[in-house]
């Protein structure tokens, strides 16, 4: 068998693919964060809680009302988005003029409360959510068996991420959004309803987290702690990619997933620190992040 640095090439390829799967989650979550930060200047610490809520909504839909996975893929992001809009309307909008820290504190507090509520009602050990029948089984890639569900996650995540990028960077709506970020007063003077756009942007950002949650539910245990375990890494991804950069967060998310996967082959113990090591190095060389622009 061919080997690279004493590691069979099959194992290496396997880990690369798995890294890509994890990277898709990072990409989708960091994309949501980047959109929210870019448009609202809010560091949304509640993002992990929204991801967790997405997984729980999917579970609740199935358990209480018999809503299956496919419907959940559409309905849950909408529901999470509505929750986000309520939060934006009632709380966040008062903070736009203040320092970043206030938004961070508010969303952090919200995250703790949302997590606490779910933990109180559903406990910490997690709930089962099975993979939809159409996606059970595995594909033989020659070097590994890739469960169909994981492949599906990569596909959905890539499609959603690229579509988001396209809308924001290449369409008229996206142009309005970018203009509203650049100079909200002037944009409003041209007759664009900026507060409405900001509200929908936040709703969309957290809806992405909710979608991530639905995708994660069959792969990981649905547990109140699932968001806080992930969110720190996702923040690191956003920082590395450059705060607010759309393409940056997508590419960084995927590539850091791969870096993490490779670390697991060579030195598994370091696999949850490697992202932060990369972050330190990137910040030393490019303080604005890989794709960020210095202001």
């Amino acid at each position, binding site marked *: 068998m061919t080997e690279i640095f004493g590691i069979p090439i099959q194992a290496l390829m396997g880990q690369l693919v798995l890294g890509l799967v994890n990277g898709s989650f990072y990409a989708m979550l960091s994309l949501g964060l980047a959109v929210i930060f870019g448009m609202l200047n809010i560091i949304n610490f509640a993002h992990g809680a929204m991801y967790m809520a997405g997984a729980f909504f999917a579970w609740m839909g199935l358990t209480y009302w018999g809503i299956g996975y496919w419907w959940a893929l559409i309905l849950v992001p909408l529901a999470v988005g509505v929750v986000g809009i309520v939060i934006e309307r009632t709380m966040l909008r008062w903070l736009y003029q203040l320092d970043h820290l206030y938004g961070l504190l508010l969303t952090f507090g919200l995250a703790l409360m949302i997590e606490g509520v779910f933990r109180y009602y559903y406990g910490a050990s997690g709930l089962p959510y099975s993979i939809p029948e159409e996606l059970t089984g595995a594909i033989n890639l020659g070097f590994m068996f890739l469960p169909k569900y994981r492949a599906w996650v990569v596909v959905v995540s890539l499609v959603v991420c690229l579509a988001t990028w396209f809308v924001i960077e290449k369409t008229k709506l996206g142009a309005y959004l970018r203009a509203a970020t650049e100079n909200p007063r002037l944009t409003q003077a041209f007759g664009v309803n900026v507060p409405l756009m900001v509200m929908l942007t936040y709703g969309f950002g957290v809806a992405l987290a909710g979608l991530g949650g639905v995708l994660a539910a069959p792969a990981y245990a649905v547990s109140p702690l699932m968001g806080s375990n992930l969110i720190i890494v996702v923040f690191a991804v956003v920082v590395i990619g450059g705060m607010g950069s759309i393409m940056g967060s997508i590419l960084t998310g995927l590539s850091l997933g791969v870096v993490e996967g490779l670390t697991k*082959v060579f030195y598994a113990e370091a696999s949850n620190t490697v992202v932060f090591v990369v972050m330190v190095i990137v910040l030393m060389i490019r303080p604005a992040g890989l794709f960020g622009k210095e202001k």
Partner: protein
Amino acid sequence: MKNFNKKQICVAIFAALGLAASAQAQVSDNVVRIGVLTDMSGAYSDLAGTGSVVATNLAVEDFKAKNKVSWAIEVVSADHQNKGDISSNKAREWFDRDKVDVVTDLVTTSTALAVMKVAKEKNKIALISGAASTRITNEDCNDVTVHWTYDTYAVANGTAKAVVKQGGKSWYFLTADYAFGQSLEKDATDVVNANGGKVLGAVRHPFPGSDFSSFLLKAQSSGAQVIGLANAGTDTTNSIKQAAEFGITPKQSLAGLLMFITDIHSLGLATTQTMYLTEAFYWDRNEETRAWSKRFFDKQRKMPTMVQAGVYSATLHYLNAVKAANSDDTQKVMAMMKKTPVNDFFAKNGVIREDGRMVHDMYLMQVKKPDESKYPWDYYNVRQTIPAAEAFQPLAASKCSLVKK
């Protein structure tokens, strides 16, 4: 009042004062305070947490129903957040300011080791139920601590032995990279080797993790028959779930070295069927366990884990010892606890050894197949009772300085 003369009243008052004074001399400030220090919010809050507080209150209730005592009993509780510094600060505050006499539960090794030291310094008692490491009764043992429910040796011993005997000779470990995981891996390795099995290797994963597929793939390529899961809580449940997803099971089998009934409940029987695990308690084992567990269920809406049952047993034994010694003095109570065998639904003729280990029978369980399960929480077949003498590390092998050799 006319029937009493002054002299009689004086005598009566002095007698009453004397009684009160003597009672106070026995139990300090006339209240026994039990502090439940546990994981209220983290990964282990289901297997301990508020359930441990419920168990403690049940023990107090049962003690009061059987005994008339002049002193009061109070239960306080707090979240140790699975952090050593938080737990030792809380314990210090409880012992110094709130006059707590005994601390129970302590769900992680780090919190247990930290509180044991404070208890020793303040001369108070620690009754550990949730934590797993054998360090508690070896290198770090002291004379005010009892390790009640289980330890890594006991669970590794039961499960690993059974799996090797079933023909699972070659092993690969998936280990949580901290003191507890390493301790569990080491104990299981010893058992596998001693029973003629072979350990092919191990991969250490960061704690806590959520994606184990990479580590599982490594374990898969090792070709071992058995993948030993030396981790706990959501790490274990996620590993099991993902092993099924990647088609690793049932070609290779999994051995969960430390699993609780809440883990099985969370994963469902379809994923966990036929797995072996070792526990100190199963709610559906006999009439006595069922009766108590139903009472617990009415309050908590979940069946008790061995940790929660252990907290009950430890608290009740402690209260009985306070009554028998007629004192809450630490040394007197500890002596009484060690002298008296533990007899309740949790343990029969349990004995507290000089190293602080409470030895009792353990049970080897096999998870039922979905069609064997007839009612909610009907999860295990009890395959074997591991007698107390074999279940725990022999006293001769103990590294505890209190053991006379």
